[in-house]
């Protein structure tokens, strides 16, 4: 059964018209750890990818594709890496439903355009960072 209804699909398709370059959604699934959640996550990602020719999907199993998982720094499932022309460092742990779904769509768009919606001052400040920054955002679907 489809996760997105017709209205969702139409709204998402309209948003994805903003894509200016290819996006790859790298999905991490592991049946033995969280089979149901991983299947739902994968299904959602595939439904989104169907709405734009610019989006491709790759599914990896961290138990098998260990080197790739380590390179992406992914240590949980289900997970999604949102890549544009390159890996910007955008990850989702868990199924991005509800409020997080709009975050996923926004992440896909910014990964595609490579143009963050931030002030010039913020962008300039981020260019001067002297160390790596790892931001965790805990969220819920509602």
């Amino acid at each position, binding site marked *: 059964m489809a996760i997105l209804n017709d209205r969702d699909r139409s709204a998402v398709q309209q948003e994805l018209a903003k894509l200016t370059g290819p996006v790859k959604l790298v999905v991490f699934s592991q049946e033995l750890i969280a089979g149901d959640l991983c299947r739902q996550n994968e299904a959602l990602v595939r439904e989104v990818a169907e709405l734009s020719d610019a989006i491709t999907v790759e599914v990896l199993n961290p138990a098998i594709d260990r080197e790739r998982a380590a390179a992406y720094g992914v240590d949980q499932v289900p997970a999604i890496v949102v890549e544009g022309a390159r890996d*910007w460092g955008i990850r989702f742990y*868990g199924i991005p439903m509800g409020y997080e779904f709009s975050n996923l769509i926004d992440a896909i768009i*910014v990964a595609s355009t490579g143009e963050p919606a931030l002030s010039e001052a913020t*962008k300039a400040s981020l260019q001067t960072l002297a160390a790596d920054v790892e*931001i*965790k955002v*805990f969220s819920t*679907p509602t």
Partner: protein
Amino acid sequence: MRLAQHMSVASDRVRSTVIEATEFPELSRAYHVMGVPKVVINDRVQFEGAVPEAEFLGAVLKAVEAA
């Protein structure tokens, strides 16, 4: 929390992970998540709730300074 994602694109130094709190109870417990959104930067600086861009940036800079 879109700011984190946009900051990731703006800087090679920044990585952001959105974590669905109810699906990862152990992580949520480890980071004492009581309300969402909760933001944790470099395991050093944290805050709850949506904040303006300048305040978010301030937290990022503080986390780096604390290193």
